[in-house]
């Protein structure tokens, strides 16, 4: 069979049949690193793509609203670019995670499914509430400016923080908290600036995570 090999109890051992402890330590380290890398649900490269996608998607919306006086909301072209970039990013992330979870069953898979359901529910709830705000005559600056991005990021950050706390993945937990801080802080930039500030903030946070992941993998 291609790519497979036979190793019996004495293979890769010294001529006298013993398995050199130095070789064993090296094999243990290599195997652990390789398994973690191939079973990991995220990677520094994936985070790098996510950081770029966040900056480009929110930057596109900012370009479409920055000259509006009074504020009306993102244009159709701005939204199209944003959703297009987000769709590409989601497809990339889902493909990567499916590959990592291939053949894996148990707690991680159940957690990932529950996380997906919680995120979708949170995003639908945020959108429903946005409709309520519009229906009650709240200004466009809130309904189509400050509220949607801020609320979605805080909701997604809270759900992600809960999952990462359960998994005891503290770097990822820190990123989820940082996303909520960016969202809350970005709201002070107003309906136009919120898109740019959140885009830059998310890009910086996710880039930092990408660097941290790369460093943790090299240790």
């Amino acid at each position: 069979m291609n790519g497979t090999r036979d190793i019996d109890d004495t293979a890769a051992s010294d001529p006298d049949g013993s398995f050199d402890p130095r070789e064993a330590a090296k094999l243990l380290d290599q195997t652990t690193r390789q398994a973690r890398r191939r079973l990991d649900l995220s990677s520094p490269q994936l985070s790098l793509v996510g950081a770029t996608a966040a900056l480009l998607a929110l930057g596109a919306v900012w370009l479409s609203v920055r000259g509006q006086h009074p504020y009306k909301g993102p244009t159709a072209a701005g939204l199209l670019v944003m959703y297009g970039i987000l769709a590409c990013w989601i497809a990339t992330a889902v493909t990567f995670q499916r590959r990592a979870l291939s053949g894996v069953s148990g707690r991680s898979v159940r957690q990932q499914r529950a996380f997906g359901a919680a995120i979708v529910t949170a995003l639908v709830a945020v959108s429903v509430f946005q409709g309520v705000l519009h229906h009650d005559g709240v200004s466009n600056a809130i309904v189509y400016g400050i509220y949607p991005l801020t609320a979605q990021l805080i909701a997604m950050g809270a759900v992600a923080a809960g999952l990462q706390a359960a998994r005891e993945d503290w770097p990822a937990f820190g990123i989820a908290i940082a996303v909520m801080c960016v969202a809350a802080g970005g709201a002070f930039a107003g309906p136009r600036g919120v898109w740019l500030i959140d885009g830059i903030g998310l890009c910086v946070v996710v880039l930092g995570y990408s660097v941290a992941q790369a460093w943790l993998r090299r240790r």
Partner: protein
Amino acid sequence: MTLDALDPLIHVPARLQIVATLAALPEGDALSFPRLQDLIGLTPGNLITHLRKLEDAGYLATEKSGNGPASRTSVALTHRGRAALNTYTAAIRRLLDGL
């Protein structure tokens, strides 16, 4: 410290790879037989032989679901297996420090 301090069940290249790979999964997760084979690169017959030895020692648990061609075997490291790998890792570090 001598080589005798190293668990003979784990201190074999193929079984060390199996245990280290399964330990990379979070506790409570299992790996299908084909994915484990893909990660380690052993032939199916060889992998089965080593899995049996580890299962007999209580280091891992296998679970078969489904029937016929659709059947699927999953392998997971037990609490005992994880503890054995931790002990083995500590022993090998002490051994190498002493060299």
